[in-house]
């Protein structure tokens, strides 16, 4: 039983998880204040014979305080978040040495195109594999997302990567995996009756293993 976010598996996971935790603490404090306040008031101010409510229309000072503190907190949160948002999603943030893969989403499969031994996407030695994403650990990867039909969404939880694949658009999502191993892709946008079955497997290799895998695929292997 998992009670928290998935294990961190990319360079994005650190900042995102830290931001998540920070928000959890801030909202947690707010929640405790409100809920404890509610319970306290419910007990302390319940009607009893001979009691009277305190007649007041409010307090401007209180309004200023509880407007200013949330406002300042939200602005700060926005500024910090935006720094990472730009890093993760802006086209200009994609490292120029990123390894490009094509992921073509369709009802109900992920067709992954690899650049082949020459490392260049769009050349004759490219090959396509169904539902399997193979990448090298500790290297920036850029996934060029396209869609055949409906809107799908490329989602790998351990990498904290999610990007919709929209028909008619060519969208690049980048990341850098930090852990080798096997993970999964899920489709995160309802795309029809087979939406739940759009599962892909992700393999994060060491550089040597990845080269070996590419060579084997190029030679017509079926693994």
């Amino acid at each position, binding site marked *: 039983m998992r009670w928290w976010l998935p294990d961190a598996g990319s360079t994005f996971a650190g900042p995102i998880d830290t931001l998540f935790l920070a928000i959890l603490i801030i909202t947690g404090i707010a929640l405790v204040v409100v809920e404890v306040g509610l319970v306290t008031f419910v007990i302390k*101010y319940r009607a*009893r014979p001979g009691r009277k409510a305190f*007649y007041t229309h409010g307090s401007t000072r209180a309004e200023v305080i509880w407007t200013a503190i949330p406002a300042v907190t939200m602005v700060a949160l926005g500024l910090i*978040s935006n720094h990472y948002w730009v890093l993760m*999603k802006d086209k200009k943030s994609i490292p120029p040495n990123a390894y490009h893969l094509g992921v073509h989403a369709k009802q109900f499969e992920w067709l992954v195109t690899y650049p082949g031994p020459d490392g260049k996407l769009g050349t004759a030695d490219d090959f396509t594999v169904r539902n399997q994403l193979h990448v090298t650990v500790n290297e920036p990867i850029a996934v060029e997302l396209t869609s055949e039909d409906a809107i799908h969404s490329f989602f790998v939880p351990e990498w904290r990567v999610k990007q919709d694949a929209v028909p008619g658009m060519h969208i690049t999502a980048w990341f850098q995996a930090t852990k080798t191993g096997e993970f*999964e892709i899920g489709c995160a946008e309802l*795309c029809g009756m087979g939406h*739940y079955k759009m599962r892909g497997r992700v393999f994060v290799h060491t550089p040597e293993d990845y080269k070996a895998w590419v060579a084997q695929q190029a030679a017509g292997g079926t693994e």
Partner: protein
Amino acid sequence: MTSVAHAKPAGGAHDAHHAPMSFWRKYIFSTDHKIIGIQFLFVSLFFLLVGGLLAMQIRWQLGFPGKPLPGGGILPESMVSGGVILPEYYIQLVTMHGTFMVFFAIMPLLVGVYANFLIPLKLGGHDMAFPRINMWSFWLALVAGLIMLSGFFMPDGAPRAGWTMYAPLSARPDLSGATISQKLWSISIVVLGLSSVMGSVNYITTVINHRAPGMTWFRMPLSVWALFITAILAVLALPVLQGAAIMLLFDQTIGTHFFDPGAGGQPLLWQHLFWFFGHPEVYILILPAMGMVSDIIANGSRKPIFGYHSMVFAIIGIAFLGWIVWGHHMFMSGMNPTLGSTFMVSTLLIAVPSAIKVFNWLGTMWRGNLRFHVPMLNAIGFVSMFTIGGLSGIFMAATPVDIPLHDTQFIVAHLHYVLFGGSLFALFAAIPYWYPKMFGRMMHEGIGKVHFWLTFVFYNMTFFPMHIIGMGGQMRRIYDPTIYDFLKPQQPLNEFISYSAFALFAVQFLFAFNFLWSLKFGKKASQNPWEDNGLEWSLPNPAPHGNWAPKTPNVYRGPYEFSAPEAGDKDYLPQYTKLPTDRDPVPAPLPATH
């Protein structure tokens, strides 16, 4: 801005002195705002039941994937096979659950019922500004609901692209499988939009023009303020959805390609149009709830609302900001990331007026003399759970954190905390509160208390764990989480949620029983059973046709003068009570045309 209304409401209102009406004119094709409100109440509660039945099937499949649904044998082969819910039926379930709950349950319960019922009563009017248009507003809403319901019975079944109907899935039957029903969806939405706009026109005009003498803007109860602002949102937002629905219909019928990238169209256009409507829509779904909760908490606390003016400005602030946050539904959509930054800012800011409201409710209860009648219990429950729902929204507002959370069960948890924990609990407060005014009887208090506590417990058992499975990565709208290795460990929690949901649904039969039983057997209500200050409590229960006609009440003070020193040994002081020190308000001069 006029500060008082004419002494006699202008144009179109019935007064009490017309010929006796037949049963059909009185109860079926009525133009009386109170009857129309009650009609909305019965029809919307029916659609709430429909939405709940759909949810039970969803929870069955999610908790026990691929197991035959008990009683599933009654469903046709297109929906279940050997009793097992089919994937194409599952996505119809999630689509129609959202559709019915948003458009045909919560929105009409909050607006169709309470804008209609409360606005003239709380402002001292005899009826709405345009009673016949009001009647049309109800009948169009009913027709729209029936059209939407018919989708399940059409060849190829109901729409299934999610209640958000993203194109191109929704525009292309070859991708979704839904044919006729998808077109009916558009028609239903257009008809519903007409109903909404007609209603809004009434609510806005009545609030501006038909206030009793002394009822200045800042003496209006917060329920009326909220319904007024909501009506402005609706009249501006619904037409956008209608336009989008028509464009979608055209893509499917007359060969347009608005959303078809193969012919120069843009799938993202649908999302922008839908959410430009959709975000104001969720404020339509919460503001009336907040307004009514304010009235009820002030009553239950025996204290004025804390920060009345701030509360008004917060309502206006939420409504205004609500127009510029829609892109937060589209952070992952592929739109320019710079828009993600701008929408993040506006979205984080909209948390502020909501926070102001929560603190003011707390301030109202602070040092009050709290009465825990059933409406007050549910109103406090609203504050407690709306807070959770609002705070969970902050996670998604921070765009990097939205990356793992978007389109997961975390969102489903958030939206249910604000729509069920929020709006529906507010309705569980409002329905018994104004029940005596509608039906002349009280709902049973004991059953109401049991219903509140059981609902509160099972509600949190159902929806709080959804945050956790969402964090774990469970995507929305998936038929079988156990397909994924990373989700299998969470399946016990899915089962727990399903059992809790079944219990939650079962408990609602207490409410349904209470509602129906009390119509005939409820304790007869005294005139002002809650010792409230609103104008409506100066009328007998149930309120008579024409309200105060031919007279109009005078208003001497604000709506929340509980425990005012002038009240003497009573702890409430209605707006309509004239103290020796009060002067009669001066009615506005009648226009020359009268």
